[in-house]
Structures are given as structure tokens and as C-alpha cells.
């Protein structure tokens, strides 16, 4: 076991796959000698050289178009979109081209590619560099979406994403880059579509993702001290979605809370809540409650951003209130 940062885990995860498979290439803005604007890819350029680790111009459509064309002809590219908000300038390639082409061509083409991107808030970057866009990606048929919450999962899910024959949107919670976690030696490979139960409790279940995972765990500690014992599920993969784990853990406690960083309307928890309502309604002891960022663009100032994102305090109070009413 070694301790790695989330940031270091990105480079290790990509390197693990590039060493194993020559068809894995990596491209993006400032990803080469500079090692990425978040320093998430330091060392890759030195190890794999400028042919496999390629700096691109500021051309997001070209970056993703290149990844798509390379994937349809047998390579396994990993493309970086620096900030997830920038998906808006290349969304056609993601939503219309990559996502639809396999189906439209009756399965003639495959797109084994990964698009990784710095997602979400917490860094005071303001509205155009902070949005949590997992719900954008999740609503497009044909895309898989994963959001790791810790260094070990970064490596395991990166391996799963690279080895998968479908396009995977790999969203890294930017505010987690400096956080540390234990990572075992050797190859780590996860399966897409598997949630993990991080804490088992008897009174309520919290389903959460990415940056919200450490906050939900901290909230669960506080709630436990006050007599509310929570199960915490790290959903990890939105598509495919491990509904069986969520349904099972919800039925076991009778209550479900989602803690989501995305803006409220049509956030991923809305889909989860609807599945729970349809399939295990009679196991519920109270309504499903969603704890989300409000439906606003994210503000920049510390005070305002902290009010917007679900905090440990908000999670605790919301759950406390719901459980005692």
C-alpha cells in the first residue's frame, strides 16, 4: 500500500493502461511536457513520448473528433477536456457523433475511447469553470459515465474505462485532486456499473458521488453521534448504473437521501429517486430526499460557493430533520 493523491492516481491510471496496450494514446491541451493544467498527467510525456502523448491546439471539437476517428479505426484514445464546462463547445461530437454512431450504423462501428475532464466546484473558479456536468453526460443514450471519489478508484475505473469498448466520460472532481488515499501495489482494474458501500448503517441510506463522497461520510459520522446510523453508497458509475446496490441498501434502511453536486433540475438523483419510487416504494418509511446544489450557476466567492454546494452541515441538518419529522 502506498499513499497517493487523486492527482497522482490519474497519471498512474493512464500509465498503467498505456504500458499494457500500444493502442492507447493520450491527447489534450497542455497535457504533454506541461503535465496538464492540474498536473494530473505529470510523467506521461517523459515515459511515452510525444507520439503517444500529444499536445493539441485549443480546439475541443478537433480533440474529440480526433479521438472518435481514432477509436473507429481501432485505437483506444484518452482525450482530455480541461474543464468539464468546456464540453459545451464540443457537445456535438459527444452527443451527436460519438454517442449515436454505433446505433445509427447498426453496430458497424465501435468507439472505445475515454474523455476525461476536471468536473465540478469547490475551487472558487466561478460559473464557467465549476459546473458539475455529470447529468449532461448521463442523459445522452450511448455514453457511459463514471465519477471516481478516491485515488484507488481513479486507477481502477480508468482501467475499466480504457478497456471498455464503448465511449466513457470520466469526470474527475477537481477539488479532490490534492486529496490522498491508500492505493494497493500492482494493477488495479474495476468494473463499470459497480457502486461500493462505504459504510453500513441501519437507519438511512445516502447515495452519493465524487466530491460529495467525503462530505457524506463526514456527515454520516456526525449523524451517528446523534443516533442516526447511515449507509453510504459511492455510486461511482452513473451509466451503467448499479441500481441493485442502491435498491437493496434503500430497502434495508427504509430511507434514501441523495447527495449530488450537480444543479438540482434533472440531476442524477432524480433518476435514482424515480427508480426507487417505482421499484421499492413499499419498503420506504419516508420520502426520498435530494440534497443538491440549487438550480443556479455557481458563484465564485468562498462564502457563496460554500452555500451553494451541499456541505457536511447541510447534509446533517437535512437528514436529521427528515428523520425526525
Amino acid at each position: 500500500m502506498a499513499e497517493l493523491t487523486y492527482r497522482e492516481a490519474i497519471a498512474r491510471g493512464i500509465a498503467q493502461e498505456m504500458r499494457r496496450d500500444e493502442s492507447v494514446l493520450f491527447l489534450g491541451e497542455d497535457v504533454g511536457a506541461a503535465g496538464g493544467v492540474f498536473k494530473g498527467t505529470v510523467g506521461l510525456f517523459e515515459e511515452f513520448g510525444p507520439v503517444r502523448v500529444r499536445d493539441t491546439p485549443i480546439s475541443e471539437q478537433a480533440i474529440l473528433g480526433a479521438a472518435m476517428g481514432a477509436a473507429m479505426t481501432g485505437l483506444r484514445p484518452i482525450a482530455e477536456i480541461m474543464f468539464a464546462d468546456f464540453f459545451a463547445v464540443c457537445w456535438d461530437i459527444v452527443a451527436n457523433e460519438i454517442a449515436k454512431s454505433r446505433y445509427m450504423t447498426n453496430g458497424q462501428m465501435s468507439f472505445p475511447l475515454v474523455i476525461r475532464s476536471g468536473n465540478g466546484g469547490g475551487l472558487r473558479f466561478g460559473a464557467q469553470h465549476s459546473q458539475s456536468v455529470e447529468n449532461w453526460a448521463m442523459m445522452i443514450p450511448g455514453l457511459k459515465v463514471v465519477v471516481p471519489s478516491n485515488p484507488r478508484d481513479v486507477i481502477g475505473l480508468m482501467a475499466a474505462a480504457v478497456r471498455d469498448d464503448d465511449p466513457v466520460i470520466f469526470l474527475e472532481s477537481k477539488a479532490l485532486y490534492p486529496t490522498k488515499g491508500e492505493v494497493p501495489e500492482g494493477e488495479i482494474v474495476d468494473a463499470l456499473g459497480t457502486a461500493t458501500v462505504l459504510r453500513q448503517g441501519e437507519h438511512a441510506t445516502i447515495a452519493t458521488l465524487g466530491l460529495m463522497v467525503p462530505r457524506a461520510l463526514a456527515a454520516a459520522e456526525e449523524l451517528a453521534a446523534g443516533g442516526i446510523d447511515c449507509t453510504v453508497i459511492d455510486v461511482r458509475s452513473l451509466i451503467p448504473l448499479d441500481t441493485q446496490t442502491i435498491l437493496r441498501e434503500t430497502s434495508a434502511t427504509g430511507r434514501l437521501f441523495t447527495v449530488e453536486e450537480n444543479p438540482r433540475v434533472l440531476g442524477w438523483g432524480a433518476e435514482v429517486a424515480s427508480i426507487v419510487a417505482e421499484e421499492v416504494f413499499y419498503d420506504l418509511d419516508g420520502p426520498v430526499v435530494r440534497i443538491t446544489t440549487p438550480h443556479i450557476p455557481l458563484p465564485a466567492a468562498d462564502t457563496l460557493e460554500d452555500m451553494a454546494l451541499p456541505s457536511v452541515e447541510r447534509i446533517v441538518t437535512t437528514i436529521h430533520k427528515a428523520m425526525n419529522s
Partner: protein
Amino acid sequence: MTTTEASPVHDVDFKLELYRSQVALRRFETRAYDLFLENYVKGTSHLSIGQEAIAAGVAAAMRPDDWTFATYRGHAHTLARGVAMTPVFAELMGRSNGLMAGKGGSMHLTSVEHGVMGSYAIIGAHLPIACGAAWSAQYRGTDQVAVVFFGDGTVNIGAFHEALNFAAIWKLPVVFICENNLYMEYTRTSEVTAVTHPAADRAAAYGLEPILVDGNDADAVYAVARTAIERARAGGGPSLIEAETYRHGGHSRADPGKYRPDEEVALWKSAERDPVSRYRTRLLELGVDEPTLARIEADVDAEVDAATEAAKAGAAPGEDLLMKDVWANGGAEWRN
């Protein structure tokens, strides 16, 4: 600016093949239009009548393992690579014997086994995608070339510029072919474009040589395409070709194209401008006899008739296709 003249580099057999190809594209599209009016072809379709010399001339310069990226106006580019008429008609009609079993339709014709790597209906999107295929060929050292077709209206969308710069800096084996038919949908491109030659005048911005060709002369198109493709194959990087042409009909469906002056339409449809008539005359001048040409035309007509009937005989796609092939495992499951 280089304007390439027709060069009689090839023997008559090659030219007869190029003629046959253009006649096939013309008659396929003419039938497709009839089938649209008869409500066999649903939705929309965009024909290449008047523009056949480009698809035919470029395809003749390609190696079988090279890649074509086409637009929604892509029937001709698909057929020119050797895809049979029946599955294309059937795809237009939404039949299970269609090229994509009816899942794509007229605007998304794809046949990977023929190197037809898709037809794209979002303006400009396929230019960067073609760059990606070219990058893949470059990385794997396969000598393959990606050829991407698009219209004159496409030069004003960002993806065009991103792709051109990208191809130039990475010296990618990709050939960009702008089919300048003077119009977007219902607006003349010159009314909304800052330069006279929509593609050629932009070449310098990407360090490329401007190439203008008479897009209604299959020999001339073949000659420039061959030069560009072989240059790309040899590691010489991308080319941008502007081929001037005209669509005889409207933009799509039953558009009568009334926004165009009558004299202009008449000029481009005249025997001197129309690519198929022109090529026929050229062959006669080269000494090919009338019966040889008539036989080619009759053969094509028979092929179109047979393909129409075979396509019509196809069943409507069934429910088994609906939830198929969202994912590489063949299915559509997004949850357990």
C-alpha cells in the same frame, strides 16, 4: 491559384468505368427522387444530381482501404466506393435489408467494409473525425488516407477551421474536398461568406496551397484527387480542394429550388456544363462508339430497376433491432 485541367492520362477503359460510375450515380439519384415522390422514401433525402463527377472522380483515385467521410448528401459518395445499390435504396426506404437495417436512414449511410466511415448530418462535424482516422493511420503506419467531403456552406462553421489547423500541424493524411455548389440550403453562400472562393481562399490560413478544380469534369477531379491522396499517403500532409459544381435540383426533399435564377439553373444543366453529358461527349470525341455508351446506360438502368425491386421486397425492420447496438455488447442496458 492552381486550376487543374483535364489530363488524358488514362486509357479508354478507365474512362468508360468513370462514365459508368457517373451514370450509375445519376440514375440512382433520379430513382431515389421518384421513390420519394411515391412516398417510398420517407423523411428527407439530399441528392447529388449534377455533382456526380466529384464522388466518382475522387473514388477512382482512392485505394480500397482508404476512408470516405461524407455528409447527409452522401448517396453518391457511398455508391462510388462500391456499395451495392440495393442496400442503399433499402436504407432510404427504411427496410431491414438496408445498409444499416433502417436504423440510420438517408443521411447516415455507412459501410465500414467499403471504407465508407459514415455520413454526417451536423454541418462540419465529420472534418475533425476524418482527422482522427488519419491520425490513426499515421500512428499505425498503414498508409491509409481519409477523404472528407463537405459543402461550401460548411466553411463558416468552427469545426472546419479546427480540423484544417489540426490536420496541418500534425501533417495528417487527410484530403478535404469542398463541393462548392454555390448554395447552402436556400441561401447563396457568397452572400454570407467573406471570401470569393469559400474553401480555396482559406487554404493559406492553414499553410496549404489553394486548389480549385472544375468539379463537373471527372477527369480533372480525378487528377487533383490523385495528386492530393498520393501526397497524403507519402507523408506530405493534408490538402484542401475546392471543386466547383451545382446541384440540379433543390436542397432536399421536394424543394423546387426557386431561390435560384432560371438562367443559372439552365446554364448548369446544359450539355456543356452537366458532368454526365460532358463526359459522354468527351468519350465520343475520343472515338468510343455510341452503342458502347448506350450499353453502359442500359446496364445501369437494369441495375437500378433490379435494385429498386429488391429493396422494396425487404421487410420493415422488426422490434429486435430497436434495443440493439447502443453498446458494443450489442445491447441497450444502462442499469442492472
